[in-house]
């Protein structure tokens, strides 16, 4: 069973070869091919004896070793090149072993470093405070509650109807600003007085939201649970300019 355990630790044919080279205390650059080939094949045999699945790569390497060994035994003519690659097969093998060895070495070094989740740990759970907000503006939801109320007053399921609406958020924003310019302060509810579809409610609402965001309008109550009022923020005359700057973002509000 010890043999088996050892066999399973080979990462591949190159790993096995490096192991054999080390065990024989020979140099990678000067591999005694006959000996190493013999031991390599013997190892594969052991693997098969234990019914281990010998991966195709191991067999390919076996063939390569046998091929190199046979070439070693033949006198080599100066002009005769390897029929496959135009290079000496042992040389290519040496190059591969050396390169693989380099990465094995650095892998060892990496493994000895302070590894995250083995040696050191960072905070596991992002606390609530660390969650990216992006929309920490709770006021949006406060406003949406108002929207919900308005929606609840409307007949249910007019979804098809809303698709036909042509009014856009930008148009509503302009209307609302005009309205505020002439009326001064208005009641939130009055915005929806003549609105009949959910779509229009929502478009109106979104328009109001946009205006709050660019600080063109202000929404307030004079007392708790009192009527919600809307008024133009100071410097409303600048609002159209602000809106113009918002143009690219407004595209998605079109109906």
């Amino acid at each position: 069973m010890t043999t088996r355990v050892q066999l399973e630790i080979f990462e591949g044919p190159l790993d096995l070869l490096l192991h054999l080279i080390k065990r024989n205390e020979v140099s990678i650059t000067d591999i005694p091919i006959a000996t190493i080939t013999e031991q390599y094949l013997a190892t594969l045999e052991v693997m098969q004896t234990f019914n281990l699945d010998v991966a195709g790569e191991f067999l390919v390497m076996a063939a390569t070793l046998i091929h190199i060994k046979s070439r070693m035994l033949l006198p080599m003519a100066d002009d005769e090149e390897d029929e496959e690659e135009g290079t000496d097969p042992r040389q290519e093998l040496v190059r591969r072993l050396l390169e693989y060895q380099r990465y094995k070495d650095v892998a060892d070094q990496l493994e000895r470093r302070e590894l995250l989740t083995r040696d050191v740990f960072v905070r596991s759970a992002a606390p609530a405070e660390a969650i990216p907000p992006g929309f920490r503006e709770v006021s949006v939801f406060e406003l949406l509650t108002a929207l919900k109320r308005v929606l609840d007053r409307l007949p249910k399921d007019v979804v098809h109807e809303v698709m036909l609406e042509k009014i856009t958020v930008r148009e509503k924003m302009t209307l609302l600003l005009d309205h505020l310019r002439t009326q001064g302060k208005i009641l939130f509810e009055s915005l929806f007085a003549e609105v009949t579809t959910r779509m229009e409610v929502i478009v109106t609402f979104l328009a109001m939201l946009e205006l709050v965001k660019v600080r063109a309008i202000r929404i307030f109550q004079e007392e708790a649970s009192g009527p919600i009022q809307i008024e133009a923020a100071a410097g409303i005359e600048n609002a159209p300019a602000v809106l113009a700057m918002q143009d690219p973002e407004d595209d998605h509000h079109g109906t």
Partner: protein
Amino acid sequence: MEREAIKSIIESLLFVADGPLTIQRLGEVLEGVEKEDLRSTLDELQAELENSGRGVRLVEVAGGYQLRTAKVNADWIKKFLGGRPARMGRATLETLAIIAYRQPITRAEIEAIRGVDVDGVINTLLDRSLIRAVARKDVPGRPFLYGTTPQFLQLFNLKDLTHLPTLKEMEEITLPEIPGEELPLESAEEC
């Protein structure tokens, strides 16, 4: 075990814990250390962090102990977190709002409300685990119905959906903060 070593271990455990840590739980890990010793070590750690004006403090909360940032740095943390580049866009925000208040709701219904295609936005929200498909609507095509997730509640610091802001809270509205904007310097400089 030495007291300083125990303190160091406790600090490490508090650091990796995802919630308040009870003395009980600490005792399970640090077997053999008496509860009184744990408690006095915690007190010591708490005092040290406090007295040296550290950015991280140890607080006793919800029956356990938890490392938290120093209150005095709150505005800076808000500025740091609020100024993150990967902020949610307006479209995402609004879609999330509609889902939060109208759940369960289908993609088509959201699109009907917003008047635009919301595929990308829905995917973003799904990716960030703020919404999830909760069921299928019994209409042709059996579209998914979306609802918000616990992460959504966490993000808005809500106990549950019934705690979504109500009309009463409207009074608290002054001017909403524009995301990414700087914090007022007066409050920041108090630190």
